[in-house]
């Protein structure tokens, strides 16, 4: 499989794919498609280098996360090219990576600014595809952007390895054949939090939801509502809040006397920081309702974001994709090389981007080609370990990774400025798995 005979592979890929999708009628458009397969988009050919595109928010509210993602990408490229200490290359198994680039070609990259806007993200991705001739695009810090770029990549025939995106839609109703998500999703957050909420807060609770008024917020609210209601909790109210409201006081004061004893903040980013800070300011943490301590839950926690909320996060439960305090070999190796390079531990966004890059490279090695349909097939159903989160599988049906999910709590006594979250529970994969059919959507064809 290592012999680089492009022609051979693409022809075989074509045959396989034709069989798989069962294309029949011989129309001119099909004829065009054949031409595509012979020479797929941005085929590196005989070049000694391949280029990957890292599309991250560099301006706007998520630019700090974007910066961290970019660091992770740069580290991944280094490791792939055999520079540095190798990081997770040493712990990742089964690995076909050799530390000599991908398929012997040196890895280079292009960067772009998504601005956390679908339009800007797509423009930036198009630049990478049309001008920089990248083979794969990764990164991003919101589901809107992920869905937008993912569908673009499907049309352009470029593989998209999503960065931070937590909405169910990314691998649900908006899933695409060319898009892959390592990050967990809102549904999994809910499933993972369920048992911990049961254990910590009991079954007799009334929850009040404040939800960011857009797609991700809604899916998050739905997942949390289902989970908590399964536990026997009541839902006092669900209130949608405008994105970027800044001051949430008008949504928080009604919570005070609503009879609810748990506040669930389905917010992310700045909204989360502000609503959490303000909820604590309104004394919700010190409150007693129905003879129980009032609790706040933040379903999606990010350490980078938690910094912005300062001491307000102390004791707050939430879930996260990964945390640098994990003790497995993969996480340790990654934290070590990341910390040595940048003087700070990686965020979960950085982790997922790093892993995604390695996984893409590995899939190319496994397929022995850069031809996307073949690479996609290597990724689909791929099982691996040693990347943090324990044994992991890229489910073939929806391109969602299944792995352990962390339930974390804001640290009461942080020992360092990075020690903000404490892992309460590593919810095993089996508990967060679900039938891929529940979210609908269609992957679409291998060949475009």
């Amino acid at each position, binding site marked *: 499989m290592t012999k680089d005979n492009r022609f051979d592979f693409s022809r075989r890929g074509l045959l396989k794919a034709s069989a798989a999708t069962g294309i029949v009628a011989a129309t001119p458009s099909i004829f065009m498609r054949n031409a595509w397969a012979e020479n797929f988009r941005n085929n590196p050919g005989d070049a000694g280098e391949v280029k990957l595109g890292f599309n991250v928010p560099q301006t706007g509210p998520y*630019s700090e996360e974007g910066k961290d993602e970019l660091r992770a990408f740069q580290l991944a490229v280094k490791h792939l090219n055999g520079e540095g200490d190798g990081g997770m290359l040493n712990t990742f198994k089964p690995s076909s990576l050799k530390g000599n680039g991908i398929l012997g070609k040196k890895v280079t990259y292009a960067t772009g600014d998504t601005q956390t806007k679908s339009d800007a993200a797509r423009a930036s991705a198009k630049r990478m595809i049309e001008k920089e001739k990248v083979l794969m695009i990764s990164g991003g810090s919101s589901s809107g952007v992920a869905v937008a770029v993912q569908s673009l990549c499907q049309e352009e025939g470029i593989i998209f390895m999503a960065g931070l995106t937590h909405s169910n839609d990314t691998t649900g109703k908006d899933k695409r054949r060319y898009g892959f998500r390592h990050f967990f999703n809102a549904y999994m957050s809910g499933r993972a939090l369920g048992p911990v909420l049961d254990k910590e807060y009991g079954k007799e609770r009334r929850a009040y939801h404040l939800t960011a008024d857009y797609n991700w917020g809604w899916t998050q609210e739905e997942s949390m509502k289902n989970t908590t209601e399964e536990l026997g909790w009541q839902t006092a109210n669900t209130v949608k809040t405008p994105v970027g409201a800044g001051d949430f006081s*008008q949504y928080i004061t009604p919570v005070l006397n609503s009879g609810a004893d748990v506040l669930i903040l389905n917010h992310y980013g700045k909204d989360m920081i502000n609503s959490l800070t303000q909820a604590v300011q309104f004394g919700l943490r010190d409150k007693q309702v129905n003879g129980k301590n009032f609790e706040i839950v933040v379903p999606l926690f990010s350490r980078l974001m938690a910094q*912005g*909320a300062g001491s*307000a996060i102390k004791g707050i439960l939430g879930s996260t994709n990964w945390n640098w305090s994990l003790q497995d070999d993969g996480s340790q190796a990654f934290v070590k090389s990341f910390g040595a390079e940048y003087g700070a*531990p990686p965020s979960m966004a950085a982790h997922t981007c790093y892993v995604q890059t390695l996984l893409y490279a590995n899939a190319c090695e496994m397929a022995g080609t850069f031809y996307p349909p073949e690479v996609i097939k290597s990724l689909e159903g791929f099982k691996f370990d040693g990347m943090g989160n324990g044994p992991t599988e890229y489910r073939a049906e929806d391109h969602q990774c299944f792995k352990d999910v962390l339930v974390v709590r804001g640290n009461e006594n942080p020992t360092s400025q990075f020690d903000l979250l404490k892992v309460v529970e590593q919810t095993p994969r089996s508990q967060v798995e679900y039938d891929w059919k529940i979210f609908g959507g269609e992957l679409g064809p291998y060949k475009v």
Partner: protein
Amino acid sequence: MDAIFLQILNGLDKGAAYALIALGLTLVFGTLGIVNFAHGALFMLGAFCAVSFNKLLTISTKVEDKTVTLFKAYKEKPYLEIWFPDAGPVLIDFAIPLSILLAIPVMIFIGYAMERGLIKHFYKRPHAEQILVTFGLAIVIQEVIKAYFGANPIPQTAPDILAGSASVGSWIGLGESVVYPWWRLVYLVFSGVIIFGVFAFLQFTTYGMVVRAGMRDRETVGLLGINIEKRFTIVFAIATVVAGLAGVMYTPVLPPDYHMGMDFLVLSFVVVVVGGMGSLGGAVLAGFLLGIVQSFASMTEVKAILPGIDQIIIYLVAVVILLTLPRGLMGRAGVMDD
């Protein structure tokens, strides 16, 4: 009843923030005739005065962090706490109110430098160019702050004694359960003082009289041989300080980040115009009005009837007011009319 009372407080609190920002904006609008798109950035700079002061107080020595074993990490211990174990932490605790002392001279300086260095060349230029130059300036200020402080919000805490909630309900006989955070009450009172101060300054000092006259008819005041230019600098500095102080005091409510000014910019323009161009009282009135309306529109009971009304209420009210009252609530004819 409780809920409505709390929403009024919320509205007043929000309104106080809007009014403070709009006050400076309308002052600069009315007297200098400058459309200042950098005004939000001044609000943000005020907030970062607090952040810097906090940083200054907590200048720290780096102590190696032994808990991080995988790579060399450092944690910081403020010198103040090392040198003055008793007074140091108290001082740090009161960083926000104390940073007002820093913010006033810094904001005056920023206002002075901005007006002398840039704005004064644009008094006679078209509004379009004022917009472009102040918007450019706002971006530059933002990016400089971002380059130094990063893009993430930086949490600031109110002093410990103001951390809890006041049982305002028991003060007015609504019951113990009606509570409101002390800091927000402080903010409300503080805004009142500032607004009162600005009005008093304009009402009772000769400077103020000239400025008010200038708001009404700039050319005539110039013809009277009064050095209006020098007054402009002072007016601009006052506007800067008011915006800055609003920023300082808002930090415990909203962790400051480099972009917070832009978030308030559009809103404060709406407030100013709804209040009526050239009217300070109008801006304050509009600020409180929009704040309260917004709070009420966010109530579940209201949203149940009109879903999403809280998303648009400010703009909706603005449209209704501007279409019924040609010059906003208290605007005067001839100011920025054309």
